[in-house]
């Protein structure tokens, strides 16, 4: 089943075209990595897909429900009520976590569920379950500022998972972490991939992306330069791709 469909997504900032028509379709259970140099537009693309940025042109749909489409050269988004429903389809893990600093770890995971309509008991049960899965049970009563970056990122993953999204986006989830802490977050994502969680991951971790994804997308200058199975991309003859992969995987 197709969970995400983006067609010809375009976006400009101050007259500069950052995305020049990106299309992507992601099926249930697929793990897709988006790689590319800084400024290639991969984060902007992810933010457009999550509707944190409005597209200038293109089509966007989740699980067959349209979220945005182009009409007479202008992008029209679905009505507010429908967008609210559509947003429940996906979660997003941010580069800098964006946990709520004034809430305990537990409340960070509980409150969004209650906003979605669960009772406190249900939400707490689910939250403790998610925290346990991510090895954070003993941190439930702590505040985010008392945790390491890796732990904070795991809390933010727990917070996203507790809402049971069908698709989970990751926006450079380890870029704000030092190498020692990167591993624990990558492990969590690896575990999720093993459970066939549908994920779209923007990352600079080449080896990780290669190992975890079903499909990789290489973006450059606002377009998809290459797309395919990880091994195909790594063994590509394309000079640009070769040099990029080579530099980042440290080979």
């Amino acid at each position, binding site marked *: 089943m197709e969970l995400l469909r983006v067609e010809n997504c375009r976006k400009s900032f101050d007259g500069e075209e950052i995305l020049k028509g990106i299309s992507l379709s992601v099926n249930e259970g697929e793990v897709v990595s988006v790689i590319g140099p800084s400024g290639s537009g991969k984060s902007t693309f992810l933010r457009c897909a999550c509707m*944190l940025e409005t597209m200038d042109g293109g089509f966007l749909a989740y699980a067959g429900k349209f979220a945005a489409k182009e009409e007479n050269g202008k992008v029209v988004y679905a009505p507010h009520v429908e967008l609210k429903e559509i*947003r429940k389809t996906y979660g997003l893990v941010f580069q800098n976590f964006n946990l709520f*600093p004034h809430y305990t770890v537990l409340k960070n995971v509980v409150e969004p569920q209650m906003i979605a309509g669960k009772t406190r008991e249900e939400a707490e049960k689910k939250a403790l379950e998610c925290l346990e899965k991510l090895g954070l049970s003993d941190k439930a009563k702590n505040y985010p500022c008392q945790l390491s970056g890796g732990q904070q990122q795991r809390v933010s993953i727990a917070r996203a998972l507790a809402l049971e999204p069908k698709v989970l986006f990751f926006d450079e989830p380890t870029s704000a972490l030092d190498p020692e802490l990167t591993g624990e977050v990558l492990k969590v994502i690896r575990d999720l991939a093993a459970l066939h969680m549908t994920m779209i991951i923007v990352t600079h971790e080449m080896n990780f992306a290669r190992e975890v994804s079903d499909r990789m997308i290489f973006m450059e200058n606002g377009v998809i330069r290459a797309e395919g199975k990880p091994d195909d991309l790594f063994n590509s003859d394309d000079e640009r791709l070769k040099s990029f992969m080579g530099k980042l995987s440290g080979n």
Partner: protein
Amino acid sequence: MSLDVIFLKLMSGMGVTVSIFLLTLLFSIPLGLPITLARMSKNKVLSALSGIYISVMRGTPLMLQIIVIYFLPFYGFGINVTAGYRFIAVIIAFSLNYAAYFAEIYRSGIQSIPRGQYEAALILGYSNTQTFIRIVMPQMFKRVLPAMTNEIITLVKDTSLSFAIATAEMFTMAKQIAAKEASLMPLMAAGVFYYIFNFIVAIICKKVEKHFDYYKI
């Protein structure tokens, strides 16, 4: 007049001073919020109105505002005010004036909340109102506490401005006694009272700030 009589008289004025102080905080702290929301609103008219309000409140002397609010019912509408209105006018003027200052402090606090907090809330399904009440406002209050402390300490001293319409607060009392006795003593004593008052206020504000130390932004 002996020293203890002076002190007793000042103490009775102190009660009025403390009332002005507390009532002003009680009304101006919440009132600052709608003013700042209007200021930050996408509605241009609302934002402009709030902007003008803040500008006038901050740009004219508080003493003048007190006098205007006290005399406005009579000169503006021909209403004879009762004796009790004197105190009410002071509270209205102080609350309106301080709300403007608090509104600006709140605005700086709101604008210092990282975009990521709004984005996370949006993705997690919070409505705009829920985001503001649950995520933005609590963090804003923590951020603005030091600036609020400053303003609150100024308020303690500003209460003396209400002598302009002869409110029976401490400074007015001190001036009256000083004039009658031809002595600086009552004013000096009033100074000591203000200092002690502010000393206590500063300690309380510090305590409140400390209370919010349990998390860092």
